[in-house]
C-alpha cells in the first residue's frame, strides 16, 4: 500500500491518543503515595463496618464512595484525556477529580479495567488476602496478561512468598505469568524457590543450568557446569549434563595445548592448516571433527585423540565414521579413508565395510573433490545397481558405468552412454570394444 507523503505526515502528526504519562511529577507523586498510605492505614481503624455499604466521606467531608459517583460525575479532564492532572498534592479539599486515580474504592473490576487501559492505579487498598486474590481473579478473568502481571508484582511485594506460592499453585494461569515474569526480570532466586515449592524439580534443574549461557569465561563456565551435575534432572538429562561438563573440560585442555603448538610453529598440520576458531564451546561432533583433523594418529591415551573422544562420549560407530571420513577427506588423506572401511576377518582376509552406506561415502568424498580413481573404488562398493549407476553417471566415473552396463548386458544403455563420452576418448574405445565383443549375450 503506497501512501503519499502527505498521508505519512498525517500519521505522525494527527495523533489523538494521549497516552498516560508520568511526566516529571514523581516527587509529588511519591509524597502523595506516602500520605495516601498513611491515610489508608488510618481508615482501617475508622471503617470497621462493611466498606461498600457505607458512603465514604473524605476529610473535606465530601462523599467519595463508589455509590455516589455516577457517570456524570466523572470530571471532564478525566474523560477527555488520559493525562492525569498535573499535580497530586496531599492537601485535603482538593477537587475530587484529582483524587480519582488514588481513590480507595475502585472495585476489583474497576481497578482491573483501569490497569488494562494502562492507567496508574494504586493497589494499596487491597490488603486482605481475600481482596488480593479477588483482584487477581478479576485480572485473570479479563485475560489481559499485562494486568495479571501488574497484580502479581503487587502480590509479590505484599505477600510472603510461601503464601504467594501456595495461592498460585492452584491458579495456573497466574502462576505461568509469575514464572515468565521472574524469568524476564532475572529473579533467579525466587524462581528457583518457586520451583522448589512446587516440586517441579526438573524445571528447577534446567533453570539453574540455563545460567551457564551467561558465563563467558570457559574456566568459570566449567566450574558452574560442575555444580549442575548433581541437580535433579531426569536420568537421561543427567548424563547429558555430565557429558557437557566433560566436553568443556576436554576442550579447555585441547585448546590450551593446541594454541601453544600452533604459536610454536613446529607442528606441520597447524602450519599447513591454521585453526580458524577456538574449539571451546563447540558441539561434540565438531570437536570430534577437529580431533580427526588435527590429532588423528594420536594414541588413545591422550585427551585429544579421536578414539578417546569416541570412547568417553560413547559416540556411535556411524557418527564416528561419518565425521572421521569428512575430516580425512578434507585433508585428502585417502589412505586413512581406505583404512576407515577396511576390516579383517579371522582368516586375515580384508573386506570393505561402511556403517553409513557407501553411497553416502561417495557423496562425502565427492564433496571433498576426491580423484576419480578413489571415487570409482567406492562407487563399485555400492550394492544397489541403480544407485551405483546413478552415482557413477553423476560423478563421471566412466569405467564403472561401462562395466556395470556390460554386467547387466544392457546394450541400449551402453549405446546411450557412448553419446555422452568424448569422441575418440579411451572410454569410447572401451565401449566400442565391448559392443563389438561376441562374448556377451546382450539382453537388448
Amino acid at each position: 500500500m503506497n501512501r503519499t507523503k502527505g498521508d505519512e505526515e498525517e500519521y505522525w502528526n494527527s495523533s489523538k491518543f494521549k497516552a498516560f504519562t508520568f511526566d516529571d511529577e514523581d516527587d509529588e507523586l511519591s509524597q502523595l503515595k506516602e500520605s495516601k498510605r498513611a491515610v489508608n492505614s488510618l481508615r482501617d481503624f475508622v471503617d470497621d463496618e462493611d466498606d461498600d455499604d457505607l458512603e465514604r466521606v473524605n476529610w473535606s467531608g465530601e462523599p467519595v464512595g463508589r455509590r455516589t459517583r455516577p457517570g456524570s460525575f466523572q470530571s471532564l479532564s478525566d474523560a477527555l484525556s488520559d493525562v492525569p492532572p498535573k499535580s497530586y498534592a496531599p492537601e485535603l479539599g482538593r477537587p475530587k477529580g484529582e483524587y480519582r486515580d488514588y481513590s480507595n474504592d475502585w472495585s476489583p473490576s474497576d481497578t482491573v479495567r483501569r490497569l488494562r487501559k494502562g492507567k496508574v492505579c494504586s493497589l494499596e487498598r487491597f490488603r486482605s488476602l481475600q481482596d488480593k486474590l479477588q483482584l487477581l481473579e478479576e485480572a485473570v478473568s479479563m485475560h489481559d496478561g499485562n494486568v495479571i502481571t501488574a497484580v502479581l508484582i503487587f502480590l509479590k511485594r505484599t505477600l510472603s512468598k510461601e503464601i504467594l506460592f501456595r495461592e498460585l499453585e492452584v491458579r495456573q494461569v497466574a502462576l505461568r505469568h509469575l514464572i515468565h515474569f521472574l524469568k524476564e526480570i532475572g529473579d533467579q532466586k525466587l524462581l528457583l524457590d518457586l520451583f522448589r515449592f512446587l516440586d517441579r524439580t526438573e524445571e528447577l534443574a534446567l533453570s539453574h543450568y540455563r545460567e551457564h549461557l551467561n558465563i563467558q569465561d570457559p574456566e568459570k563456565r566449567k566450574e558452574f557446569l560442575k555444580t549442575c551435575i548433581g541437580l535433579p534432572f531426569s536420568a537421561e538429562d543427567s548424563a547429558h549434563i555430565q557429558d557437557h561438563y566433560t566436553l568443556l573440560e576436554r576442550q579447555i585442555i585441547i585448546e590450551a595445548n593446541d594454541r601453544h603448538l600452533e604459536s610454536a610453529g613446529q607442528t606441520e598440520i597447524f602450519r599447513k592448516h591454521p585453526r580458524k576458531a577456538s574449539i571451546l564451546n563447540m558441539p561434540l561432533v565438531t570437536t570430534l571433527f577437529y580431533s580427526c583433523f588435527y590429532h588423528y594418529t594420536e594414541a588413545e591415551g591422550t585427551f585429544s585423540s579421536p578414539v578417546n573422544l569416541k570412547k568417553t562420549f560413547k559416540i556411535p560407530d556411524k557418527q564416528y565414521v561419518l565425521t572421521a571420513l569428512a575430516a580425512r577427506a578434507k585433508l585428502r588423506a585417502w589412505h586413512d579413508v581406505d583404512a576407515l572401511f577396511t576390516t579383517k576377518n579371522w582368516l586375515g582376509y580384508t573386506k570393505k565395510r561402511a556403517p553409513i552406506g557407501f553411497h553416502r561415502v561417495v557423496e562425502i568424498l565427492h564433496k571433498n573433490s576426491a580423484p576419480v580413481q578413489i571415487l570409482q573404488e567406492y562407487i563399485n562398493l555400492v550394492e544397489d545397481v541403480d544407485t551405483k549407476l546413478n552415482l557413477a553417471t553423476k560423478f563421471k566415473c566412466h569405467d564403472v558405468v561401462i562395466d556395470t552396463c556390460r554386467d547387466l548386458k544392457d546394450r541400449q544403455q551402453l549405446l546411450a552412454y557412448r553419446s555422452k563420452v568424448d569422441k575418440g576418448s579411451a572410454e569410447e574405445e572401451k565401449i566400442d570394444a565391448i559392443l563389438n565383443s561376441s562374448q556377451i549375450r546382450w539382453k537388448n
Partner: protein
Amino acid sequence: MASAIGSLPQHPETTEKSRPVPENSEANGGAGCPAQDPDVGSHGADPLPGKKDLFIEADLMSPLDRIANVSILKQHEVDKLYKVENKPALSSNEQLCFLVRPRIKNMRYVASLVNADKLAGRTRKYKVIFSPQKFHACEMVLEEEGVFGDVSCDEWAFSLLPLDVDLLSMELPEFFRDYFLEGDQRWINTVAQALHLLSTLYGPFPSCYGIGRCSKMSYELWRKMGEEEDGETKGRRPEIGHIFLLDRDVDFVTALCSQVVYEGLVDDTFRIKCGSVDFGPEVTSSDRSLKVLLNAEDKVFNEIRNEHFSNVFGFLSQKARNLQAQYDRRRGMDIKQMKNFVSQELKGLKQEHRLLSVHIGACESIMKKKTKQDFQELIKTEHALLEGFSIRESTSYIEEHIDRQVSPIESLRLMCLLSITENGLIPKEYRSLKTQYLQSYGPEHLLTFSNLRRAGLLTEQAPGDTLTAVESKVSKLVTDKAAGKITDAFSSLAKRSNFRAISKKLNLIPRVDGEYDLKVPRDMAYVFSGAYVPLSCRLIEQVLERRSWQGLDEVVRLLNCGELAFTDMTKEDKASSESLRLILVVFLGGCTFSEISALRFLGREKGYRFIFLTTAVTNSARLMEAMSEVKA
C-alpha cells in the same frame, strides 16, 4: 483524518483511544486494510519537541520503514538514529528518545543510560515510546532502577500494519513464544484492540467463529471492550461478513512443512521481512543486494505468488518471450509511433523487465539452493510423515540429517513434524534422536528440547492413555494441594496432537488417482504439491460451509478444543450479501504464506474474499527459532 473526539457519543472512558471515523471504508474494494494512526506524537505533535536522537529497537525498524522515512524523522528534529543495542550510547544530544517494544531488557538499557548520565552529573531529557503498548512490568523496572520520573513514557499504538491488499500484520513475532511457550497473555489485549479497531472501521461482524484458548480469550476481551463502549457499532451496516479466529497450536503441522508455493518458498529461502525481501548478489547477479517490496503492486509477483513452484519457471519464461515481442514491435515503427512507444509503453516494459529479471534470479537461486540440499528427498520424507507411512525410513533420514550437522533448525523441524504426526515419539527413539542432536549441535539445546516439550511440539509418547485419564481426574480436584502437585506435571500447554485421526476425519490427504495436476489445482492441497490440505484452512472451509461447528464435534474434540470452539451469530439481515462474502481470518501465533495462498484459492473457488490478520507472518524456521535456546 479528522479528530474523532467530541464527534461521537462516547462513554467517558472511551476517549482515550480515539478511532478513525468509521466512514465509507471500502471493505470490498482494494483496501481491505485500514490505515492506522501511529500515535507517535501523543500530544498531537512531537512527543519530545526540539532536537533529539532517536534510538530504535531493531525489530521495529522494518515496520517503521513501511510508514516513515528519514526525512520525516528529520522534520521531527531527529538528529541521529541509533539501534538499541547492548552498548553504551555515544549520543551527545540533550534529548534522547527511545522507540522500543515493552521489554524488560530495553528498560534496563534505558535505565543504564540514565544512571550513567546521573553519575556523570549530566542532565538530559529521556522519552520512551512503547510500541504497541506499555506494560506495567516495564514501569516497575524503571521504578526499581531509580529512573522513574527521569524518563517519560508514551505509547505508539501501532498494531496493524497493512502488508498487502488482503494482509494485515501486527508484527508481533514474539507473540508465539510468549503465549504458546510461556503461557503469557500479555498480547491478548493488543489483539482485542486490533479487532476492536477493525470493527469500528468495518461495522459489527455478523458471525464469529473461533477455535483455541487464545482465540476465545481474545474474543471475550474484545467483546468486553465493545460493551464498555457500546453505541459504537450499533446500527452500522456490517461490511465484513465473517470473522474466524484460530490459534496456531490448533495446527502446528501446516506451519512446519516446507513451503512450495512461490511466495512461501521465497519466505523460506530469503526471509520476507515486513512485506519486503533483500535479494543478495546471488539473485541480482551484480555485486549489490536489492530490496524488493513484495505485494500485489508487483504485477509479475502477483501472478506467481500463489503458484506451485513448478509452474513458476514456465510462466516467467513465457512472460519474458511476450516482453521480447513487445520490445520487438518497435522495429518498423515510424517516428510518431516510436515517440508514442517511448513515452507511453517503454516505461511499463522496462519496469516489467526489471521485475521479471528479479524473479527469474530468485527462482534460479532457489533452484540452486534446493538442489544442493536434496530438496526432493526432503519433500518425500515430509510427505511420508504426513501420510504416516515408512516411519522407520523417515526417522533414519532425520537421524542422518542430524549426524551430518545439516542445519540445526531443519533437523529440529523434521523431528517436530515426526512427533506431531505420530502423536509423540517412541521413548527409545526420542532419546536417541535427542542425544544425537545434542552431540551435533551443542549440549545447551537440552533447554530447547525442554521448550519444545512444553509447547507440545516435540514429545515422547506416554505409555498408554492413562496419563490423560489421571489428568482429567486430577483437574477435578484442583483445590487439593497434593492433586495440585500432580497437575503440575501436566501443567504445560502441551496436548496430544491426534493428527492421524484428524487427518482422516477431515480428509487432509487427498486420494490421488494418477498425477496431481499442479497447473490446474483442484483443491487447497496444491500448496503442498497435492499431498496435504492444510489443516487450518480445511477447518475454516468446513465451518464456513456449515456456518457453525456443527458436525465437527469429533474433530474439535481431537483437537483438544472441546470448550474452545465457538460460534457467535448475530442477525445477518443487515448484512448485504456482498459483505457476507468477505471474511476476516485471524491467526494468533502467526500464519504462513502457504495458508494464505490456500485460502486465496478457496476464495476464488467459492466466491469468498479473505482478509488475513496475523500476529506475524511465520514459517517453520521462525517457529523453531522461537523455541531455540541459543547463545546470545
